C-alpha cells in the first residue's frame, strides 16, 4: 500500500479509530474524550492539508479494496472530493469543540461522540467515493451513524423524529441501491468519471431504462438533500441537540445528498447525456419549487430551529439548481454554495444553540433585545443571516451571483426571478429576527451570568470562528484557494472531462 | 404385473398413509409410529426395485441402503419414544444437574 493510496484510507481512519476508542471510554472521562476528539480532528486536518498540497502538485490519491464482484470499494480524491472533505473536516473540528461545551454534564457522551466521529468518517467516505457503490456504502453508514445522534436525548419526541428520519433515509437508500444495481447491469460500470461513464453506453441502452435509473438515483439522493417532496425528515429532526443539527444541516447529511446529485449528473450520466435525455429541466423545476417552498415554510415557523431547518431545505436546492442548469458558471455557483451554505448554516445553528443553552430561547418571538445579553452571538447570527440573504460581499452573494449568471448562460432567465424571490423571502424570515434582537426592548431582564462573558467559551469560540469563516469565504473569494477558487477549478474539470 | 411392482405400489400406499398419519394424527405416539412406517414404505420400494432383475440375483446396493436405513429409523424411533416417555411421565424430574 503506497503513501498515495494510504492517505485516503487514513483520512477515514483518523476519525473512525478514535470514534471506536471513545465508545469504550467510561462516561466520566471527559478530559480524555475531549483530547481524543480534538487530536483526531487536528490529525484529519493535517492529513487533508497534505492531500491538498499533493493535489495542487497534481498527484493522484486513490485506494482500492476488492468488494463485490465488478465493483471495488474505491476511494479517489479529486478537487470536488477535496472540497467536501476540507469543509467537513474544518466544520467537524469546530462542531466537536462546540459539542463538548454544549453537552457538558449531559449523559451518554461517549456514545454521542463515538457516533459523531462515525458520521464524519462516513462523510469522508462519501466525499472520496470513486464509484456509485462505494458512495452507497458510506451513504447508508451515514444513516446508521447519525440515527443515534438524532435520538440522543431519548425523549419520545426525539424517538419519533428518529423513526421519521429512518423511514425517509432507508427508503432513499433502497431506491439508490436499486438504481445502482440497475446501472451496473445496464452499463457495466458505476465509476465516477469526469464527463460521465454513460457517454459511451448511452447509445447502446434504451432511453427509457436510462431515464428510469436516473429517476431512481436522483430520488434516492434527494431524500438526504431534503428536496421536496422528500424533505419531511429535516424539520422533524431539529429536536436533536444543536451540534447534531449542525452535523445534519452543514457538515454531513444534506450535503451528502446534494454532493451525490452533483456526482450522478456530472460523473455518472455526464451533462451531455443527461441533457440529451431531457432530464435537466425537470430537476431545475423541482429545485426551484423546493427553494420557494422551503422559504415560504420557513416564514411560517416561529420555532427558531424549525425556521432554520426549512431555510436549509430551500438553500440546499440552490446546489441542485446550479448543477441542473448545466453550465460552467452555474456549476461554480452550485459547488461553491456547498461550502457557503455549510459555513453560514453552521453559524446560525450554533447561535440558536447558544440561545437555547444560555437563555432557553426557542421561539423567535422571545428574541427581542437578546443582542444586549449576547452581542457576539447575535453578531455572528447577523453576519450569517445577511450572507444567506445574499448581501455583497458576503458568501451568499457570490453563490447567487454565479447562479444568476449561470441561469442566463443556460437561457433560463426565469430562474433569476426564483432567486430574487427566495432572497426576498430569506430577508423576510431572517431580518425581523435580527432587527428584534438588536433594536427592540427585551420583554424581561435576562438572567445574568457570573464571569461577565455572555456564554461559555467552548460555545462562543466555535460560533465566532464559523462566522469568521463565512465572512472570509465571501471577502477573499478572489483568491485561488478560496471556495470560489476551488469551485472554478472543479467546474473546469467537469466540463473539460 | 410382476411381483416387484406389486410390492412397490404397496410401498407407495404405505408412504401415503403414514405421511397422513405423521401430520394428521393427534396422539404423539401414533405420529412416531407413522414416521417409522414411512421408512418401511420407502424400504419396500427400494427392495422391490432391487428385485426387478428377478429371477436373476437382486441388486445388493438397495439392500445395503435399506439396512442402513433401518438402523437409522430404529435409532430415531427409540429416541422419539424416550422423549415421549419423558413427556408423559409426570414423575420425571426436570432436574438435569442444573445445566446453565
Amino acid at each position, binding site marked *: 500500500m503506497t503513501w498515495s493510496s494510504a492517505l485516503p484510507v487514513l483520512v477515514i481512519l483518523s476519525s473512525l479509530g478514535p470514534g471506536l476508542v471513545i465508545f469504550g471510554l467510561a462516561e466520566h472521562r471527559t478530559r480524555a474524550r475531549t483530547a481524543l476528539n480534538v487530536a483526531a480532528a487536528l490529525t484529519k486536518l493535517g492529513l487533508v492539508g497534505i492531500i491538498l498540497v499533493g493535489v495542487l502538485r497534481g498527484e493522484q490519491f486513490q485506494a482500492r479494496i476488492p468488494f463485490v464482484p465488478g465493483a471495488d470499494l474505491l476511494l479517489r480524491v479529486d478537487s470536488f472530493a477535496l472540497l467536501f472533505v476540507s469543509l467537513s473536516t474544518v466544520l467537524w473540528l469546530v462542531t466537536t469543540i462546540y459539542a463538548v461545551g454544549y453537552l457538558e454534564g449531559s449523559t451518554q457522551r461517549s456514545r454521542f461522540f463515538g457516533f459523531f466521529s462515525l458520521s464524519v468518517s462516513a462523510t469522508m467516505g462519501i466525499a472520496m467515493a470513486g464509484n456509485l457503490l462505494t458512495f452507497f456504502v458510506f451513504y447508508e453508514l451515514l444513516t446508521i451513524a447519525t440515527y443515534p445522534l438524532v435520538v440522543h436525548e431519548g425523549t419520545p419526541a426525539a424517538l419519533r423524529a428518529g423513526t421519521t428520519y429512518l423511514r425517509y433515509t432507508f427508503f432513499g437508500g433502497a431506491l439508490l441501491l436499486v438504481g445502482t444495481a440497475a446501472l451496473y447491469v445496464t452499463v457495466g460500470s458505476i465509476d465516477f468519471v469526469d464527463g460521465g461513464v454513460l457517454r459511451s453506453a448511452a447509445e447502446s441502452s434504451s432511453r427509457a431504462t436510462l431515464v428510469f435509473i436516473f429517476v431512481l438515483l436522483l430520488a434516492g439522493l434527494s431524500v438526504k438533500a431534503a428536496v421536496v417532496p422528500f424533505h419531511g425528515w429535516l424539520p422533524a429532526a431539529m429536536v436533536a441537540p444543536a451540534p447534531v443539527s449542525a452535523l445534519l444541516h452543514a457538515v454531513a447529511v444534506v450535503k451528502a445528498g446534494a454532493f451525490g446529485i452533483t456526482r450522478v449528473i456530472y460523473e455518472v450520466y455526464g451533462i451531455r447525456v443527461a441533457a440529451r435525455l431531457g432530464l435537466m429541466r425537470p430537476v431545475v423545476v423541482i429545485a426551484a419549487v423546493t427553494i420557494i417552498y422551503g422559504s415560504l415554510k420557513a416564514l411560517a415557523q416561529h420555532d427558531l430551529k424549525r425556521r432554520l431547518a426549512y431555510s436549509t431545505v430551500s438553500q440546499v436546492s440552490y446546489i441542485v439548481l446550479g448543477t441542473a442548469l448545466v453550465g460552467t458558471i452555474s456549476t461554480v455557483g452550485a459547488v461553491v454554495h456547498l461550502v457557503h451554505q455549510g459555513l453560514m448554516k453552521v453559524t446560525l445553528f450554533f447561535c440558536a444553540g447558544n440561545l437555547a443553552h444560555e437563555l432557553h430561547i426557542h421561539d423567535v418571538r422571545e428574541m427581542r433585545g437578546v443582542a444586549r445579553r449576547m452581542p457576539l452571538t447575535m453578531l455572528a447570527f447577523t453576519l450569517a443571516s445577511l450572507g444567506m440573504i445574499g448581501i455583497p460581499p458576503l458568501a451568499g452573494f457570490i453563490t447567487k451571483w454565479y447562479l444568476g449568471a449561470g441561469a442566463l448562460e443556460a437561457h433560463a432567465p426565469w430562474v433569476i426571478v426564483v432567486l430574487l424571490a427566495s432572497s426576498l423571502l430569506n430577508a423576510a424570515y431572517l431580518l425581523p429576527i435580527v432587527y428584534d434582537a438588536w433594536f427592540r426592548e427585551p420583554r424581561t431582564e435576562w438572567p445574568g451570568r457570573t464571569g461577565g462573558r455572555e456564554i461559555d467559551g467552548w460555545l462562543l469560540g466555535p460560533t465566532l470562528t464559523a462566522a469568521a469563516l463565512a465572512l472570509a469565504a465571501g471577502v477573499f473569494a478572489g483568491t485561488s484557494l478560496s471556495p470560489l477558487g476551488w469551485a472554478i477549478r472543479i467546474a473546469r474539470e467537469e466540463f473539460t472531462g | 404385473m410382476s411381483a416387484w411392482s406389486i410390492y412397490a405400489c404397496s410401498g407407495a400406499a404405505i408412504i401415503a398413509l403414514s405421511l397422513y398419519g405423521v401430520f394428521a394424527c393427534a396422539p404423539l405416539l401414533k405420529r412416531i409410529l407413522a414416521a417409522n412406517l414411512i421408512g418401511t414404505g420407502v424400504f419396500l420400494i427400494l427392495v422391490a426395485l*432391487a428385485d426387478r432383475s428377478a429371477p436373476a440375483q437382486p441388486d445388493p446396493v438397495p439392500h445395503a441402503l435399506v439396512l442402513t436405513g433401518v438402523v437409522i429409523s430404529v435409532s430415531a424411533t427409540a429416541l422419539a419414544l424416550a*422423549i415421549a416417555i419423558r413427556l408423559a411421565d409426570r414423575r420425571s424430574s426436570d432436574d438435569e*444437574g442444573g445445566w446453565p
Partner: protein
Amino acid sequence: MTALDLVFDVVLATVMPVLVWRILASKDLASSVVLFVALGLVSALAWARLHAPDIALVEAAVGAGLTGALLMNALSWIGAEAGVTEPVSRATRVGVGILVTAVGVGLAVAVIHLTQPVGLAHEVDARLADAHVDYPVTAVLLSFRGYDTLLEIAVLVTAALGARLYAPGSVPGGDDPLSPHPRVLARVLTPIVVLVAGYLLWRGASAPGGAFQAAAVLAGGGILLVLARVLRPPRMSSIAVRAALVAGLAWFIAVAALPLATGAQLLEYPSASAKQLIISIEVALTLSISIVLLMFFPGEPAPGEAARHPEDRW
C-alpha cells in the same frame, strides 16, 4: 411365477397398507402397537418374497421384535390412552389428505414405470474380489459404501446418548422377581442367543447376516435377561458400558483413518489384511450396536409415586 405366487404377493401387498391404516386409525394405542408388531412380521415375509433375506432377518429381529418391545414398554409408561396429543384442525387433515393422496398415486405411477431393471449388481460382482468379501450386501455395507455405515453408527450412538435419559426403570436386586421361571428361561436362552448371534456374525461375510443382525439378536436376548432380572441393565455410569458403546465406532474410525498414513484413501483397506479388518469391524460393531439397542430399552416404570427415576448420570 405361478398364479399362487401372484395371489400370495397381491394379498401380502394389500395386507400391509391395510395394517398401516389400522395402526393409525385404531382407537387405543395398545392395539396400534400390537398391529405394528404384526406388520413387522408380515413385512418380513414380503422381504423374503423379494429375495432380501438379510432385511427379513433384521425386520423380524428389529422391526417386529425390538421396536415392538420398545413400543410395548413405552405404553407401560404412557398408558394405553392417548398420551400426549397435538390437536389437528379439520382443515389440516383435509389438506394433508389431498396432498398425500397425490403423493401416493404419483409415486405408484412413477415406480411402475421404472420397468427397466438397472442396478449395480454387476459392478458389485465385478469388484467383489477386490473388496475381499464374499457376500455382496456385506461388501456394499462395509467396503463400497462403508462410509455410509460409519456415519450410520454415529447416528446410532447419538440416539443412544439421547434416549438414555433415565436410569432403567425396573431395577433388579432387592425386590424378588415375579417368578423363578423367567430366570430359568433366561439361563437356557442365553447360550442359544449368543450362539445364534455368533453364527449370524460369522456367516455375514459369506451369506445373509452380519453385525446388525447379530447385534439385534444379542440385544433381544439381553432385553429378555433384563426383564428376567438376571442381567443388570447397562448404565452409562459404568465405564465398561461406555467403552463398549464407543468401541465399535472408534475401531471403525481407526481402521478408516489408517490408510491415510500410507497416502491411500479414507477407508481404503490394505488388500492384504482387508478381510480380517472387515471382520474385526463387524465384531466391534456387533458389541456396540447390541449395547445401544439394549440401552434403547428404558425398562418398566417403577411402581408408586415415591420411586423417582434418577438420571443415568455419568
